């Protein structure tokens, strides 16, 4: 039987701590809103802003279980470039700050951990507790004494009877959420750093990952009117209803970002309704409206495509190892027939087919990368990997070869983790509203960590000569950027593509276009085109393939050189296989030259010996995936 003192000690201490959070610091109006009208905006989106939309802090019940001791405040400090002390003791800092951060703590965890305890009102009604409450506010010494008293009383069973309040748990959740929103406002600095509200909705039927991150456009004036939507016992449609209700009631906006489809065992992107019945147009439209973007790459693997689905794509299979074995906790193995519902490229193709049948495309989404770090440290950098969770921060020197916590000892190892990705948003400035709107119009892209600048415009009139003029203006005025749609007619679409390397990173190997389309029989097809690559004269296509760029990585030292590859690759590309009126999508994939992964940095730093398989995977071509541009027949 539960010992009462434990229960009450928890309740009391929490109540004391929570009571401190009741009043919020006044924050400048420009910082607490959506940022509209606070800074001067560029005419067009002029640079990609870098962020992580998927970070967990100690407010997430599992992150806490994994041991993290850093909260949202430290998370924000780290993301904007400050040095913080990680849970395991070492100092952590980003080489380059991020421009925005969405803290996405589990909605269930958020309320639930705090519901372990009781509400402030409880204190005020009881004399003893009220006294402790007052001691708390007197000085830290007094507050420690109060807690010591409280624990003693609790242990002796002398605690006063608590009043029960049906609204107490709800109030506690609200306290935590409101406090969190206040913290975000304090760190939100229009023009410099956007601290964006969100949460993770964690639906996981039988261990199959159907998680979404929900991201808000607004400041605390609006977001404080709702609570994070629980994932337990709810459905995705109910989540979308919640988001729609939020928009209607507050005038704000929210969007949802599915992630780790690779661990859904085919359930994330089904051709049917969740119950197996034929998909309805209403469902497809609802899903499309709520979910304009997916997270395609993160620490727990990459979901672009799988070699089984894309046998002709020689670059498929990045970040697939280990994750392809089964669902999240590895309670159910993945079979080949499940893969199509688990990967993003296939989902984009399914979307075309469903749109043909239903008139609405549930899977017309853009792509971002993020971390899903549970350490409060938003870093996707290979040479600065702080682990999936506190149990594999760098303090665990053998983390690269150790078995993972999820599905331990059945085939997933530390080195299967990616360092995590980033989300790049083409925006006119750095405010909550500008960043959110970029997501909403899908003018965003994913990288597996490097910060390369990738632009693509789709249209029908672009020419090589456009590079000599103001091609960005032409792109926007005569075409559409990534995430946009074109009407499919007689002419083949043209794409103006520019990929600029990460200024502090590796050179580029090649730029590819991935096309998905419905053929004349209505069957889903895909094709990968090499559009432009470095040293094209010396790397002539041979046997239908572009020769490999080479490899400068020193395995003994975990270093590489930029002696190969290119600083920028750009081209105007026309689809050579276009058929009139075709329904298609096109996205750009940019590959860097081979560089060391975090596992190789670990091996060198800590003197760890990687297995042959892990060693072979310790060097990779990091990449970027843009949101697609769609080609739709006129209605």
């Amino acid at each position: 039987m539960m010992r009462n003192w434990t229960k009450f000690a928890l309740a009391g201490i929490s109540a004391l701590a929570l009571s401190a959070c009741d009043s919020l610091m006044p924050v400048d109006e420009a910082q607490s809103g959506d940022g509209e009208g606070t800074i001067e905006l560029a005419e067009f989106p002029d640079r990609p802003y870098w962020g992580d939309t998927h970070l967990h802090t100690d407010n997430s019940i599992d992150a806490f279980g994994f041991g993290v001791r850093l909260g949202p405040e430290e998370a924000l400090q780290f993301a904007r470039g400050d040095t913080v002390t990680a849970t395991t003791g070492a100092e952590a800092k980003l080489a380059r700050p991020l421009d925005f951060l969405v803290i996405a703590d589990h909605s269930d965890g958020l309320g639930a951990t705090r519901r372990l305890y009781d509400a402030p009102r409880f204190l005020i009604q009881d004399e003893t507790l009220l006294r402790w409450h007052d001691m708390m506010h007197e000085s830290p010494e007094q507050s420690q004494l109060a807690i010591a008293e409280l624990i003693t009383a609790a242990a002796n069973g002398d605690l006063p009877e608590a009043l029960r309040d049906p609204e107490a748990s709800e109030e506690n959740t609200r306290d935590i959420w409101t406090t969190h929103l206040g913290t975000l406002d304090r760190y939100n600095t229009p023009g410099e750093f956007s601290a964006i509200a969100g949460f993770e909705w964690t639906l996981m039927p039988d261990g199959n990952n159907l998680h979404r991150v929900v991201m808000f456009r607004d400041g605390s004036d609006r977001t404080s009117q709702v609570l994070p939507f629980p994932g337990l016992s709810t459905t995705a449609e109910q989540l979308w209803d919640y988001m729609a209700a939020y928009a209607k009631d507050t005038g704000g906006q929210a969007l949802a970002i599915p992630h780790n489809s690779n661990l859904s065992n085919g359930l994330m992107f089904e051709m049917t309704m969740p119950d197996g019945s034929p998909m309805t147009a209403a469902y497809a439209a609802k899903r499309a409206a709520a979910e304009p973007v997916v997270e395609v790459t993160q620490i727990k693997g990459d979901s672009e495509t799988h070699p089984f689905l894309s046998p002709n794509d020689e670059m498929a299979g990045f970040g697939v190892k280990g994750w392809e074995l089964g669902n999240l906790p590895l309670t159910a193995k993945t079979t080949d027939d499940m893969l199509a519902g688990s990967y993003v490229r296939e989902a984009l193709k399914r979307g075309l087919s469903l749109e043909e049948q239903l008139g609405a495309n549930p899977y017309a989404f853009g792509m971002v990368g993020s971390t899903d770090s549970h350490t409060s440290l938003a870093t996707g950098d290979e040479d600065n990997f702080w682990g999936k969770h506190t149990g594999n921060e760098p303090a665990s020197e053998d983390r690269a070869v150790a078995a993972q916590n999820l599905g331990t000892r059945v085939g997933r190892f530390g080195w299967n983790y990616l360092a995590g990705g980033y989300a790049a948003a083409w925006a006119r400035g750095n405010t909550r509203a500008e960043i959110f709107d970029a997501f909403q119009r899908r003018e965003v892209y994913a990288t597996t960590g490097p910060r390369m600048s990738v632009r693509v415009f789709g249209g029908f009139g672009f020419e090589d000569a456009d590079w000599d003029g103001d091609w960005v203006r032409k792109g926007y005025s005569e075409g559409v950027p990534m995430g946009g749609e074109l009407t499919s007619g007689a002419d083949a679409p043209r794409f103006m593509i520019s990929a600029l390397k990460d200024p502090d990173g590796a050179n580029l190997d090649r730029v590819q276009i991935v096309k998905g389309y419905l053929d004349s029989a209505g069957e889903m097809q895909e094709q990968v085109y090499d559009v432009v690559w470095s040293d094209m004269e010396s790397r002539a296509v041979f046997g239908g393939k572009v020769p490999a760029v080479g490899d400068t990585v020193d395995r003994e030292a975990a270093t590489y050189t930029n002696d190969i590859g290119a600083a920028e690759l750009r081209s105007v590309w026309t689809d050579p296989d276009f058929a009139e009126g075709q329904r298609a999508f096109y996205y750009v994939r940019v590959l860097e030259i081979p560089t060391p992964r975090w596992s190789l940095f670990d091996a060198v730093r800590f003197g760890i010996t990687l297995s042959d398989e892990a060693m072979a995977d310790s060097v990779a071509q990091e990449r970027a995936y843009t949101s697609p541009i769609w080609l739709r027949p006129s209605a």
Partner: protein
Amino acid sequence: MTMPRWTREPLVHFLIAGALVYAFFAWTGGTAVDPSSRVIDVDRNAQAELALQFERTMGRSPTDAELDAQIEQYVRDEVLYREALRLGLDQDDAIVRRRLVSKMDMAAGAAAEMAEPDDATLQAFLDDNKERYQTALNSSFDQLYFTDKTAAEAALGRVLGSDGWQGIGEAISLPPTMKSASQRDIRAQFGEEFSGVLAALETGEDWRGPLRSGFGWHIVRLRERSAGETGFDALRQQLSNDWRSAQVAERKERAFDLLRDAYRIEIDR
């Protein structure tokens, strides 16, 4: 203490924490029952609470079927919760232990979280930490890009005698002109090496360089540099955030020292 291997599995921690969550959901849910009881009474009050909870989450009342599902879920949770307690799953739990430790830290820092520092306090904090709030630089400059250093050096000669400078460099998707750009912005677009060297340049109407970047070589004309907006008012929010963090850390440490003094700690060497 030696614990079985499974107890160190974070997933198990999560599951136990989850069980606790359910437990406290039930506990704060308002039914004042002894967990050892084998009667689960979902009376009208309890049902009303479940309905209310549903309504707060969904923004509407539950249908009869939905309420039935809520009740079913509640009963399931309650049964498992009580069985978990009977099995003693709450005892010696690492999560509870850690949570308590964390709460002690939080409580110690709470007063600082509440405090609203006045300007004098913040000014003193600024004076003590001057190096952290160095004046931000804003630069306005033109740049021309070259793959090779020699080409950049040659262009330096040509651009001096030329009326138009645009078009002299090689094509690259970088802005030829940056206006009042922060050091942070320059670094994001041109990289660490370039921004560092640029920051040390003197302003002037002449072209300088070449400067190296991750892309290649640049010659630049640094037209203007101004100290960014870093007056006290502009820094106020940041100072307030940082002051509060420092206070919390300090109070935690002081509170710990105070408590620790009451212990005699024996460590076998």
